């Protein structure tokens, strides 16, 4: 049984149908990619899968449990984390504090109003580890808004990772990154591959196809093709969109 499964997802905003009969099955430790043109509904799909929107029809299950109508915070607590295409960071906090805020240990202490959290060294240490993993260890004390764009992207992922999720949803993590940023990201994802279940929306097909086990193509709110990267190389849309770059 798939770890994370969505079937028959249908999403409507008023009269507009944005997703239609979308199915997605993700096995544990699998790396699944989602591609498609802009406006196809990929981010909406993510938003539905992570609880931001309630689907008009369809079901979503995680580890056998139906999570379709749960709130985003409830879904997050179950071990599903996501990054955002338009970054959602705590700009006034340092990179370290951004990561600390994401950790489940912090959440467990939510209502401790008399506890001086600054004395919890273990939080700092755990955060440094996560930051090290994305290459931000040297800039742990820098405020998020003072970080470079590439570092902010890395932090966005670090925050998602800090919650120690079972499934990680990444929404266009290479967006706006240059060649070195992409390389750094690719390294990170290679390290995570196989240890974490990952679902990733990407426009950088070369990068995605080198990492993903399976890919789904979404266009006009529908899954028009799915398969392994090799199988999809022959797909007409894939070929049209990235001629010659996929080798």
């Amino acid at each position, binding site marked *: 049984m798939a770890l994370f499964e969505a079937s028959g997802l249908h999403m409507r905003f008023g009269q507009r149908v944005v997703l239609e009969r979308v199915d997605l099955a993700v096995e544990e430790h699998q790396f699944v990619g989602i591609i498609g043109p802009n406006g196809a509904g990929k981010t909406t799909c993510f938003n539905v899968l992570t609880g931001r929107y309630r689907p008009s029809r369809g079901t979503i299950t995680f580890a056998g449990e139906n999570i379709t109508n749960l709130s985003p915070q409830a879904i997050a607590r179950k071990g599903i984390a996501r990054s955002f295409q338009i970054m959602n960071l705590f700009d*006034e906090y340092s990179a370290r504090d951004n990561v600390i805020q994401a950790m489940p240990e912090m959440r467990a202490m939510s209502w401790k109003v008399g506890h001086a959290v600054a004395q919890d060294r273990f939080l700092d240490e755990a955060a440094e580890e996560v930051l090290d993993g994305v290459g931000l260890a040297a800039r742990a004390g820098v405020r998020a808004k003072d970080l470079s764009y590439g570092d902010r992207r890395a932090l966005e992922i670090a925050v998602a990772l800090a919650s120690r999720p079972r499934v990680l949803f990444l929404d266009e993590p290479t967006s706006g990154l240059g060649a070195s940023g992409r390389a750094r990201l690719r390294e990170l994802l290679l390290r995570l591959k196989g240890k974490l279940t990952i679902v990733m929306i990407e426009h950088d097909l070369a990068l995605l196809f080198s990492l993903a086990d399976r890919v789904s193509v979404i266009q006009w709110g529908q899954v028009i093709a799915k398969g392994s990267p090799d199988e999809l190389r022959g797909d007409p849309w894939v070929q049209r969109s990235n001629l010659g770059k996929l080798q």
Partner: protein
Amino acid sequence: MLPSPQASPRLITPAIAIVLLLLATVPFWIERIGLYPYLGVEILIWSIYALGFNLLLGYTGLPSFGHGAYFGIGAYAFGLAQFNIVPNLWVCLLIAIFAAALAGAFVSAFISHRRGIYFALMTIAFGQVFWFISIKWHSITGGEDGLLKIARLPADFGVVQFDLGSSNYALYYFVFAAFAIVLVGLWRLVNSPYGRILQAIRQNETRVTFLGYSVWWFKVSVFTLSAAISGFAGALFAMAQTSAFPDVMSLHHSGYIVMMTLVGGGLVSFWGPVIGVFAFLLTRDLIGALTTAWMFWFGLFFVLIMLFKPEGIAGLVRDLRNGFIARFCTPSPAPVRDPGS
């Protein structure tokens, strides 16, 4: 903006100790500088109010433009409890705090799924509703004439009793004790995990939600707490003024607390609200001696602050200090973290 989460874990920081020590001695020197003891009482009461208010605005980023309602409810509840239930200081204070907290919980239950403009509008609407009620419900609140003859009940600790009515000094020290408790309590609160979550909500509510927190509950709880503290201040105010009037609940008055808090630097500093209270009351007394339009000038000052230095007085002080450090202290890089202020 606000003190980085790596602030001191101590219960009482040097800053807190110094401030409390200074304030503890006020009755001894206040007349020498040309002021009067009751001003000290007012400063402390408004500081409690402002600190409670800033929990909402500065820390959680929720603009409450109708906060006078909770201050007023505390004031009225104190008086009404005294007249109709039992003239016991502790009971009346508790009832006042509870009444204000209840109102806060009620309102926040309606509005906590919002933020920004909608939130502010709703706080104005509820503030106006409470204000209307206090004016029109003549039989309970005395309407525009207010609630009069509220007594300064004695502070009975069992083994010893202090008559707060006879002198402003006894009252001062009672209010000082209240202030100290609120100050230390809030300092610990904002440096706790709960406090961090509030600041995270201010910065990015979406992210907080997706990290698994129920933002709604945090907003409701902080609003209720803020209302409770404001109500506590209101009760003390009623006792000090021996009366309660509807105008503290007006939009106009609710604006005062917003202005004070921001002018002082509530957006960037724990002490901002207290600084703002000093600025406001000193303006009232010193500039007020020169012109009755002192409030206009303070308001103008507020607008200028919002335009050019939203970080307020505390922000200016911090800039001066950092500038000083940068110019006169050798190679250490400008501190990213600014503990304890």
